């Protein structure tokens, strides 16, 4: 039988899913063992038990100086920045994307400009952003916004353009003004796409957040990772990396769920 037609059974499936995770875990354990055998104080690849201890400590014990549990404060600070950044980006992308997709005048005005702007590497302008926006929250949020908005605008503009023209014409024959078309025909059809656009943008958004926090912050997940990098505290770094991954996963999942809840008509079919 051809390989493309061979399907694993139930048990095999479960085993296969776990396989790469197990392989990575095993590789880590072995490598860690080797290094720890050579130098018990090695910080590079701490033993899993050690990471677990650290994780437990980070999640439950307060900072010596202030008594605050830093991990939660870091998480809160980072999520706030992320929320603001993504929120602002989404809103502007929605407005501009719909305008570009609907209005020939807006399309002319912004299409090339956004094409060019989206090619500017945001990290390269990071120094400029810091100088314009200062080192406070604004600059971090601004980096996220600058980083993800152009792509989101293009995405939403394209989706707006993809709405069958027949639908717009039909709305016109029902006497709808431009505003009514935007609000009642285009917006509801674009919103589900906004959510998938946000889902796509979250990856880069995390990236920009971490980059911004690495350079100037006093709290935040990225800040902590880059701070303890100085002491090579891999146990902390790994805990934070896994935590961020988990957060990213949950957000992605929540958005998918939200989309299905909010827009029942997208899933509906005969």
């Amino acid at each position, binding site marked *: 039988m051809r390989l493309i037609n061979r399907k694993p059974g139930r048990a095999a499936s479960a085993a296969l899913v776990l396989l790469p995770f197990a392989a990575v875990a095993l590789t880590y354990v072995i490598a860690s063992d080797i290094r720890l055998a050579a130098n018990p104080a090695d910080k*590079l690849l701490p033993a899993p038990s050690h990471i677990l201890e650290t994780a437990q400590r980070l999640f439950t014990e307060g900072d*010596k*100086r202030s008594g605050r549990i830093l991990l939660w404060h870091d998480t809160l600070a980072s999520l706030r920045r992320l929320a603001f950044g993504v929120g602002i980006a989404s809103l502007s992308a929605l407005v501009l994307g719909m305008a570009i997709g609907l209005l020939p005048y807006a399309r002319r005005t912004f299409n090339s400009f956004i094409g060019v702007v989206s090619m500017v590497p945001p990290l390269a302008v990071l*120094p400029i952003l*810091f*100088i314009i926006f*200062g*080192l406070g929250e604004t600059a971090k949020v601004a980096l996220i916004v600058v980083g993800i908005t152009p792509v989101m605008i293009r995405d939403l503009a394209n989706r707006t353009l993809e709405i069958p023209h027949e639908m717009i014409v039909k709305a016109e024959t029902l006497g709808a003004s431009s505003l009514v078309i935007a609000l009642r025909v285009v917006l509801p059809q674009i919103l589900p796409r906004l959510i998938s656009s946000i889902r796509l943008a979250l990856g880069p958004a995390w990236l920009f957040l971490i980059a911004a926090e690495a*350079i*100037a*912050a*006093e709290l935040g997940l990225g*800040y902590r990772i*880059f*701070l303890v*990098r*100085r*002491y*090579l505290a891999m146990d902390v770094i790994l805990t934070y990396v896994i935590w961020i991954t988990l957060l990213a996963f949950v957000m992605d999942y929540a958005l998918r769920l939200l989309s299905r809840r909010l827009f029942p008509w997208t899933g509906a079919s005969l």
Partner: protein
Amino acid sequence: AEQKTDFKLAWTIYAGWMPWGYIETSGIMDKWADKYGITVDIVQLNDYVESINQYTAGAFDGVTATNMDALSIPAGGGVDSTALIVGDYSNGNDAIIVKGDVGLADLAGKSVNLVELSVSHYLLARALEQVDLSEADLGAVINTSDADMIAAFQTDDVEVVVTWNPLVSTILEDPGATKVYDSSDIPGEIIDCLFVNTDTLADNPAFGKAVTGAWYETMALMASGTPEGDAALSEMAEASGTDLEGYKSQLAATAMFYTPKAAMEFTEGASLQTTMVSVANFLFDKGILGEGAPSPDYVGVAYPDGATTGDAGNVNLRYDTTYVAMAVDGTL
């Protein structure tokens, strides 16, 4: 500038600058600011270069910086700055570390990891001069973020690093690491100061007085050896991610000017001019003074006795003992 009552200082983590954090949290700054009817906000930033850039762009009235970076960024950028506090000079805090049994003269052909254009770079240049080498004789100079210096040293392809404390002491914990040169070999050349905007200072003497007063009160406390002094040191130690012992060993490599008198003597000393000329030469050589700079003398530096080095018509960096003298005289 004009008269105002609210001021902002930026500082970053470094052994000799830890007191700034303490001054803020302990309320010493507020006490002195209140005395002069002003407020001074001391803000910690975690990126050193960014803090100087922000100061240069006008976001802060003062910033902690080395003599070298003050000359290149704010002074080079036309922001007239005055060294209000000359806090210490590096006396071993910056070091060149190699792997294995390698001497300074053996650096030829090797690649060196350091934060380019920083005082580490300057230290390297001075070290190479002593063994008649130049940077061109090295294999390469690889710009490496200070945050990654410890990890970098652990990788095989890194042979030489130049960096500063507390990274130096951490790296030296590695049995294979050897220090071949440090800033105690060029005492007094890497100077850590608080620079403030000259115009702001001129229009607001109260600002200079309050900051100077707060600083030397803290210095006295640190040098006192009393339990209160140790408590203050412990707090600084913790803020810099180490313990009291660790912090004390860092301080040992830092020539702090605990008394205003010591600071004043150092600032008025003759060697400062030599140092600044050497620094200017280094910066010019690296192109850091900007392509508008026709010579190392592009930026002028003024000294307490009224002398200047560099272009006297473009003085943008000033060493001024007016306020420290008030501290010496106890008139603050």
